[in-house]
């Protein structure tokens, strides 16, 4: 598994490649820990290049959603059909702290919505 980061409208995007399993899920957990600790409201994982995820990886996603609850959401971009099915089985896709996007443009639109809502509150 490889993880690289980029930024989308001020939100940290983690691009993950390869297989996420019990042997390496800890590295993903450490990666998302930084924005979580910083208090970020939105975190995005681009899973386009992930061909396998197991309960070790799913559990990192669940815990991230739990920690973002009441303050924002975790966005997942373009998981393959099999990965997506696992996320559905564990109930992630119906959690209000979780968003599924077909591509980065869709994620960007949702982030813009968050930004304009915040500006509206000020």
């Amino acid at each position, binding site marked *: 598994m490889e993880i690289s980061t980029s930024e989308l409208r001020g939100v940290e995007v983690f691009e993950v490649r390869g297989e996420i*399993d019990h042997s390496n*899920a800890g590295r993903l957990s450490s990666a998302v820990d930084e924005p979580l600790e910083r208090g970020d409201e939105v975190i995005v994982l681009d899973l386009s290049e992930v061909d*396998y995820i*197991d*309960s*070790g*990886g799913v559990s990192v996603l*669940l815990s991230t959603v739990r920690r973002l609850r009441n303050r924002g959401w975790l966005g997942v971009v373009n998981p393959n059909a*099999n990965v997506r099915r696992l996320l559905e089985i*564990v109930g992630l896709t119906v959690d209000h702290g979780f968003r599924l996007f077909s591509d980065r443009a869709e994620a960007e639109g949702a982030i813009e919505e968050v930004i304009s809502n915040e500006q509206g509150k000020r």
Partner: protein
Amino acid sequence: MMKEANNYCRQIGVEASPENLREVRRFVEEVSRDLQLEGDDGYDLKVAVSEAAANAIEHSGAESFLEVCVTQYPDDRLTFEISDEGNFHLSPRKPEQAGGRGLGLPLMVALMDEVRIYRNSRGGTTVSLTLFLGEQQQRETA
């Protein structure tokens, strides 16, 4: 041809270490190719077997050995047996605190047609995961 497929039986042994989960999954992929499994079956088996192996690795001691054996029976049952030398236990912690361990068994149950856990002759635990391939085909053609 059919008879040959029904006698399908292979097994591998790996050291009980998380780094070997990949090797276990490559084995399941080979089996799926050999048996020309269709649809979601191959991926479901890969996840379920890998979860059972991860569970075994977690509760096996260092330098212990893990065996994965697959058999296709004449009635088109395909069974993977993952055997170790330790005792199966469910994590009492919440899944998100247990590094996903608590999610392994529910995933196996969700993806497989039958999941059995029993004590094996080595004094360890065997997790048996079965897909009814014939039934699947019947369901699809119905």
